[in-house]
């Protein structure tokens, strides 16, 4: 019988089938359960059983029945029992278990144990399993070790443990004595790297409490004066230590690829970052006085650290993160961007990944510096790793503006050319954003723009979804010059009708939809156009036959394209002259007169009626689509006229605001909601009723399903100078300061949704010495994913510019309200 741990593991591994393995595990599990119930089992056997139980834990089996037994082992006097007992307790229990109270006493005893290894086990376990109750009860014992021990081994653990306890229960800050830390820090013989790591952790805990909490009002602690001021005395010492570490070359034991203890360096940089974040938040002179020294130090680290090895890159990366999270001065920001660009140029994919990720975050802070490195970014578009490509793609769009549009779009075309079905997500993302880009940027060279879309359709037509095809059609339709349109159609046709060409595969639905639509709209331009001479293959018959063939291919498989073909057949019938071809088109339409698809059947019958009208009637009905007006422009006007609705109610007190029954904000949710259908009617005019049943049908569908969504189509653009002030899983918030003068500031807030947000309500508060006037949410309180909604704020009064913002909204159409709240402090004051 295999009774040792080793033989049990061997048995499990030796099992031939999954069923065998299960049988062995179940049997052993039951056996352990009975054994552990036996009070007279010798300690040695108990240990074996607990070890087996831990193996079951790793395998993912149920182990709760061993929890009490592991606590029993901790109570034993023997070290071997204690060590295993603590190990088992930290694995099998977690912070939420009631059983933890059983441990309190034992931990208490062991923290005073004469053997330092027993103390260390207790400290480690307390660090893993500290409920707020344990934190309160045992903190004095841990503090006692920090005060009295001279052993770096115990000190480092006690510091780590204390850091966790303080974080668990921040009222412990009242007892915490900063001098304990100062003393340890000044005693070089005990202040090892491990102890320094412990010190950074305890400082991080304290600073994070300052950053998150509002200690001032709660327990009578004045965080700024009682905590932060004495803490700031350590800054100088920290600078020196970090500088020494960074410039040190070889320190055996701590060396990582020629870099001295990158772990400690990163922790120190992060701790300093927290110092200054809290300093900014509380406007503490004590801390901010050191800001210049800190900037100098970061500059030296950024320039002196070896960037060829991962360990050095880790330090540089931490430095860059700090520069941007504190938004330090511009030279440092540019230096930061340059470091990230250097990462991009390297071979290592991990550094590329973190670089792209970080660049994406810092674009709003330092747009031009990032743009300068677009060559490297474009280079990453060709990377083999899809996650690198995805980030490079996001970043490309983030830095895209009027000045580099052509260059970047060309890069994106090169990128699209290399994608296949596996990266469908990337393709869809690119198309979505390209369409948006052409919506928001005015492109002078329209024929180039159409060429871009021709290429897109050629390369990735099969992957484009119908909604985006519609957007592309709108862009084509809105092109001003007829010549460009006919040229576009000419190119489409010559690729499709030329039997030799293999470029367009039969399953390229996107391409075919656009081609069919364009034939209906601009067929005459190509047939009667000036450049007729060199295109022998394009004539009335070939186009008609193309439509017929296509129709045959998709009769049953794709009704969407049949819909397009029917409309096009009707429209084309007045653009051609050969009676034979016209009859073919009529037959095509008639084919669907008894289709089982109701829409097709209806369309077929209606079109048949049109077909028999006189040519002059048909010509007016079947005129080319009018320019598709941007709906957003319309709602702009509406906004202009409703300006007087903007609430003038000043809002000053925080308490007022955070009450749910705020008066001023509720108005705006309906304020500029324009009736969408009115606008559509306005645009299409009465003509539309018959001219484009297809188009109209779609639009109507859109407008009835999502009335607000249809209208807010991407008309607020995030300005490049807006800084991100908040980031959550559902939205980003950016702020852009328009003007600050003494006593008055204007700023805009931008809410960028990550998924559909509706009924957004914002509640804003400013310090007591200031008054706030809140504008309306524009264009609406419903924001589609990745779109932006804007709100203007006017702040008057005096003091630092700070905001507390509370957001209520419904996420993804759910009926429950989501709440989010955050604070932001600007560098400017009134």
């Amino acid at each position, binding site marked *: 019988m295999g009774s040792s741990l080793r033989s049990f593991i061997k048995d499990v591994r030796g099992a031939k089938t999954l069923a065998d393995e299960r049988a062995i595990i179940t049997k052993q599990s039951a056996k352990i359960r009975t054994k552990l119930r036996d009070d007279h089992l010798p300690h040695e056997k108990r240990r074996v059983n607990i070890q087996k139980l831990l193996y079951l834990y*790793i395998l993912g089996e149920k182990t709760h029945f061993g929890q009490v037994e592991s606590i029993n082992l901790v109570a034993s006097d023997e070290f071997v029992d204690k060590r295993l007992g603590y*190990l088992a307790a930290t694995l099998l229990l*977690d912070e939420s278990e009631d059983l933890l109270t059983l441990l309190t006493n034992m931990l208490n005893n062991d923290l005073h144990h004469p053997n330092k290894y027993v103390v260390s086990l207790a400290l480690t376990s307390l660090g893993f399993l500290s409920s707020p109750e344990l934190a309160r009860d045992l903190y004095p014992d841990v503090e006692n070790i920090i005060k009295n021990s001279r052993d770096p081994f115990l000190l480092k653990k006690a510091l780590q443990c204390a850091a966790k306890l303080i974080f668990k229960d921040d009222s412990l800050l009242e007892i915490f004595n900063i001098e304990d830390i100062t003393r340890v820090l000044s005693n070089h013989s005990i202040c090892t790297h491990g102890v320094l790591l412990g010190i950074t952790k305890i400082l991080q805990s304290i600073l994070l409490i300052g950053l998150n909490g509002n200690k001032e009002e709660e327990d009578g602690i004045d965080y700024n004066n009682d905590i932060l001021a004495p803490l700031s005395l350590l800054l100088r010492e920290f600078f020196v230590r970090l500088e020494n570490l960074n410039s040190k070359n070889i320190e055996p034991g*701590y060396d990582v690829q020629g870099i001295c203890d990158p*772990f400690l360096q990163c922790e120190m940089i992060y701790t300093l970052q927290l110092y200054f974040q809290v300093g900014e938040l509380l406007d503490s002179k004590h801390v901010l006085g050191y800001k210049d020294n800190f900037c100098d130090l970061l500059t030296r680290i950024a320039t002196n650290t070896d960037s060829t090895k991962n360990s050095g890159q880790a330090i540089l990366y*931490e430095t860059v993160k700090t520069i941007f999270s504190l938004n330090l001065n511009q030279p440092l920001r540019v230096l930061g961007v340059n470091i990230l660009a250097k990462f991009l140029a390297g071979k290592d994919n*991990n550094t590329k*990944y973190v670089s792209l990720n970080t660049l994406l975050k810092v674009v709003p802070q330092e747009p031009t510096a990032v743009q300068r490195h677009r060559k490297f970014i474009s280079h990453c578009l060709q990377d083999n790793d899809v*996650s690198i490509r995805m980030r490079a793609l996001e970043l490309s769009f983030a830095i895209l503006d009027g000045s580099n549009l052509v260059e970047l779009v060309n890069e994106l075309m090169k990128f699209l050319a290399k994608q296949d079905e596996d990266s469908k997500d990337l393709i869809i993302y690119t198309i979505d954003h390209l369409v948006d880009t052409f919506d928001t940027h005015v492109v002078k060279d329209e024929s180039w723009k159409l060429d871009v879309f021709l290429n897109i359709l050629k390369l990735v037509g099969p992957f484009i979804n119908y909604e985006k095809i519609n957007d592309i059609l709108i862009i084509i339709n809105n092109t001003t010059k007829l010549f460009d349109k006919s040229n576009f159609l000419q190119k489409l046709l010559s690729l499709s009708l030329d039997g030799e060409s293999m470029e367009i595969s039969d399953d390229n639905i996107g391409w075919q939809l656009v081609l069919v639509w364009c034939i209906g709209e601009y067929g005459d331009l190509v047939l009667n156009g000036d450049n007729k001479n060199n295109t022998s293959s394009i004539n009335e018959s070939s186009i008609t036959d193309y439509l017929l063939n296509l129709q045959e291919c998709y009769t049953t498989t794709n009704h969407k394209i049949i819909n397009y073909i029917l409309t096009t057949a009707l429209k084309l019938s007045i653009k051609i002259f050969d009676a034979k071809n016209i009859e073919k088109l009529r037959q095509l339409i008639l084919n669907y007169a008894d289709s089982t698809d109701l829409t097709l059947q209806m369309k077929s019958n209606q079109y048949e009626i049109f077909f028999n009208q006189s040519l002059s009637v048909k010509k007016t009905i079947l005129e080319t689509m009018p320019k598709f007006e941007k709906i957003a422009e319309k709602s702009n006007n509406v906004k202009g006229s409703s300006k007087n609705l903007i609430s003038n109610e000043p809002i000053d007190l925080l308490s007022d605001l955070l009450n749910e029954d705020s008066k001023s904000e509720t108005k705006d949710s309906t304020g500029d909601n324009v009736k969408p259908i009115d606008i559509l009617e306005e645009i299409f005019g009465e003509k539309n009723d018959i001219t484009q049943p297809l188009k109209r049908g779609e639009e109507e569908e859109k407008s009835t399903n999502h009335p607000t969504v249809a209208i807010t189509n991407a008309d607020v653009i995030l300005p490049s100078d807006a800084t991100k002030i908040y980031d959550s899983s559902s939205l980003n918030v950016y702020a852009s300061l328009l003007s600050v003068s003494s006593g008055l500031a204007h700023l805009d807030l931008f809410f960028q949704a990550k998924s559909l947000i509706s009924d957004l309500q914002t509640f804003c508060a400013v310090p007591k010495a200031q008054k706030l006037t809140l504008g309306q949410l524009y264009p609406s309180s419903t924001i589609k994913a990745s779109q932006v909604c804007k709100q203007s704020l006017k702040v008057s009064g005096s003091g630092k510019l700070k905001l507390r913002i509370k957001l209520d909204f419904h996420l993804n159409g759910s009926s429950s309200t989501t709440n989010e709240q955050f604070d932001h402090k600007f560098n400017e004051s009134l």
Partner: protein
Amino acid sequence: MTQLKYLILVSRQGKIRLKKWYTAMSASEKAKIVKDLTPTILARKPKMCNIIEYSDHKVVYKRYASLFFIVGVTSDVDNELLTLEVIHRFVETMDTYFGNVCELDIIFNFNKVYDILNEMIMCDGSIAESSRKEVLHHVTVMDTMESNDNLERVLS
């Protein structure tokens, strides 16, 4: 900085060899993480980057011989490049302790692996000791204390 959420060791066949959670999570959450991550990471090609996004956090992983070291880290706070160094330090330390560590060492001596890990990483997944020598010294002292305990028992 370093603030690990969990560390999971998975073999190339998808078997769990070790796991340690540094944040409190329900059993079902833990099971889901293991179930989701294992196939995702095993399927990744060698040249791909070692950082992936998963649910609300990031995952840094690294393959050493037949074992994958999978670490959950806190987005925006953790330094992913440093996490790779942490994993490497852990592997190096085991390597010295076992003398050319292999998967079998870890399977049969998982409690030793935990002992080493607990000397390096404490509390909420923060690094407590960056020196390999220091970690090994204390682990071996504790090993000796254990065997002394046993010896005394035999003698008495």
